[in-house]
């Protein structure tokens, strides 16, 4: 039910208090609606966009590639019911198995759970994102649900080091519009709007959360006590709230090892290469636009170095889509290189008695993984917001290994295209200019990373904050490494898993 008003100085009691009404918070409340538990969901914003609410996201942002600087904090997220799903693209793809592995060439890599652990929750995550059954291949399909006809259209055959994979396109589901109405009807759910949590208050030892301090829409302050709390406000706000909750411990809640806010990651996104690809139109377009599969599902094809190539070449994960370019807009030499490529393709085709194909120009738009970096972090700024909370200070840093991996991946792609006569590639990155035209992907990752070891992570494998018995964290802030996939799908799988875990803990 929707809680319209709360008196000032009230103390509300509930079983589970979820802070944040975005994809994670709404999903947890929905998943536990039949549990018999009373769930209180506190959303800082209202039903729709509001300038005053959004202004609470203002802060200082700096970093290696932030062309829009501090605007990153306000343009990359939305502070109202449904959170950033109100402006997401709907791209769903799980993290890859290699993302979970400890990798000798990636410092601080390795999750305490495996890809298989999360895959068990993928179908329910897919339901939440409204992309249909995800891991239930039909006859004639491979494990990704790809048919032989679709495989025939791939740029790279299996075993070439690069592979085509599919992004599944959500409508995109706006979680507030889609799921809040049923929560408002649910008897055991208490939905508070314009309810900003400004402090997590623990016992004096910091080992258990007693309540959260809330500022309501009319400025009234109240407390919510609960048996368990879930922090689900996104990677920047999760860190900010934990750091700012320093009543008993100077570093904030769950921060005895000075890890909260560190290891902030995003996916640097850039035009890493320009490619000439002699292929059929239908092959090319699946990488450049959403296409409808025979099942009616919307998908987009991406190119990625497969897990094995990443291991052998010590690459970071990445994926690329294509942006087709009209020939007249192609850069210098592109048409000449196209002619050279086609000459050679023709020589090869002649011997195979095949008709030469048309060629297309495109930018390879790459989203890359970054190495977890403790100095890339969310901190508390010097200024405070209208609610008296320190504003966030984000320092998003990329390193040399991140840049080198992009260059190396594109060089390997150039080699594959060349020897297979599948095209030619122009590198748009080099050592002198490693991040031309790069931006972030608005994927906020890390800051409360997952590890079994409290010295290496803020939360454990169950997403519970180390050293705090009744506080869990949801969302991509728990990602130990970021992979290259858009994070929403995997964070939903994590959310389903967390909801199951909480159900077990609280109904025992």
């Amino acid at each position, binding site marked *: 039910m929707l809680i319209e008003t709360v008196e000032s100085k009230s103390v509300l009691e509930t079983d589970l208090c979820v802070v944040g009404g975005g994809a994670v918070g709404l999903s947890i409340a929905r998943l536990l609606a039949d549990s018999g538990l009373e769930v209180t969901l506190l959303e800082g914003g209202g039903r729709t966009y509001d300038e005053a609410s959004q202004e609470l996201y203002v802060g200082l942002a700096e970093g290696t590639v932030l062309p829009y600087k501090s605007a990153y904090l306000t343009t990359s997220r939305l502070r109202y019911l449904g959170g950033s799903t109100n402006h997401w693209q709907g791209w769903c793809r799980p993290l890859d198995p290699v993302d979970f592995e400890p990798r000798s060439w990636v410092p601080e890599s390795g999750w305490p759970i495996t890809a298989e652990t999360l895959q068990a929750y993928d179908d329910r995550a897919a339901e939440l994102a409204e992309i249909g059954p995800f891991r239930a291949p039909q006859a004639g399909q491979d494990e990704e649900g790809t048919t032989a006809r679709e495989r025939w259209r791939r740029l790279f055959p299996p075993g070439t080091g690069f592979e085509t994979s599919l992004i599944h396109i959500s409508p995109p589901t706006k979680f507030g519009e889609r799921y809040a109405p049923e929560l408002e009807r649910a008897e055991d759910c208490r939905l508070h709007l314009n309810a900003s949590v400004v402090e997590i208050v623990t016992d004096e030892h910091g080992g258990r959360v007693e309540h959260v301090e809330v500022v309501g829409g009319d400025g009234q302050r109240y407390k919510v006590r609960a048996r368990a709390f879930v922090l689900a406000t996104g990677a920047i706000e999760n860190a900010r709230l934990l750091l700012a909750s320093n009543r008993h411990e100077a570093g904030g809640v769950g921060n005895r090892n000075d890890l909260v806010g560190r290891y902030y990651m995003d996916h640097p996104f850039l035009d890493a290469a320009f490619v000439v690809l002699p292929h059929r139109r239908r092959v090319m377009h699946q990488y450049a636009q959403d296409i409808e599969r025979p099942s009616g599902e919307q998908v987009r094809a991406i190119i990625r170095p497969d897990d094995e190539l990443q291991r052998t070449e010590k690459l970071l994960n990445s994926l690329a889509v294509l942006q087709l370019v009209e020939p007249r807009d192609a850069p210098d030499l592109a048409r000449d290189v*196209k002619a050279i490529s086609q000459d050679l393709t023709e020589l090869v085709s002649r011997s195979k008695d095949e008709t030469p194909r048309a060629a297309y120009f495109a930018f390879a738009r790459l989203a890359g993984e970054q190495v977890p970096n403790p100095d890339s972090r969310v901190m508390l700024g010097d200024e405070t917001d209208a609610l008296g909370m320190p504003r966030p200070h984000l320092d998003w840093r990329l390193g040399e290994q991140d840049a080198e991996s992009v260059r190396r991946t594109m060089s390997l792609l150039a080699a594959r295209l060349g020897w297979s006569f599948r095209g030619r590639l122009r590198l748009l990155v080099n050592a002198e200019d490693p991040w031309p035209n790069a931006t972030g992907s608005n994927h906020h990752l890390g800051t409360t990373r997952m590890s079994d070891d409290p010295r290496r992570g803020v939360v454990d494998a169950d997403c519970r904050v180390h050293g705090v018995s009744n506080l869990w964290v949801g969302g991509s802030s728990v990602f130990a490494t970021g992979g290259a996939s858009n994070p929403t799908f995997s964070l939903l799988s994590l959310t389903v898993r967390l909801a199951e875990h909480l159900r077990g803990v609280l109904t025992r």
Partner: protein
Amino acid sequence: MSDDLPRVDFPEEGSRGPSDESRIAGVSRRRFMASVGTLAGLVLLPACGPSQESLALGRRLIEVLPTGDAWRRVGEIYLQSDPPESGVEALIDSLLSDLGWDPAAGTAEELETQVTKRVRRDFHEGHTVEVQGWVLSATEVRLAAIAAQV
């Protein structure tokens, strides 16, 4: 760039190694020059620049390329970068050495086959050159540079 592709079976590659090709190509080019000289009679070579024989051989090499203008433009850009290997004769020597194609006895069809095989192999072994960022095989670039000068 040093791309090795350990997991990829290199298709259509013969068993002959690079050292064999170099030996065969070196001998073949000398034999070709001798045959050209015999056919054309005594030729006075200019004091500098490529010989007529080299130019003729260069033109013969690029005849297999359907779109000569594109190759020439790429070659011109490459040559503007002051590369270590730029003279027609040196380029032809390197090319024939890599191709293992005998100008005196080889046919155009055989040359086409050898060019495509060598381009594959260049990419496979990382013998690539960047021209304005374009990653091209060494063989492609040599052909382009020859095309720009003959």
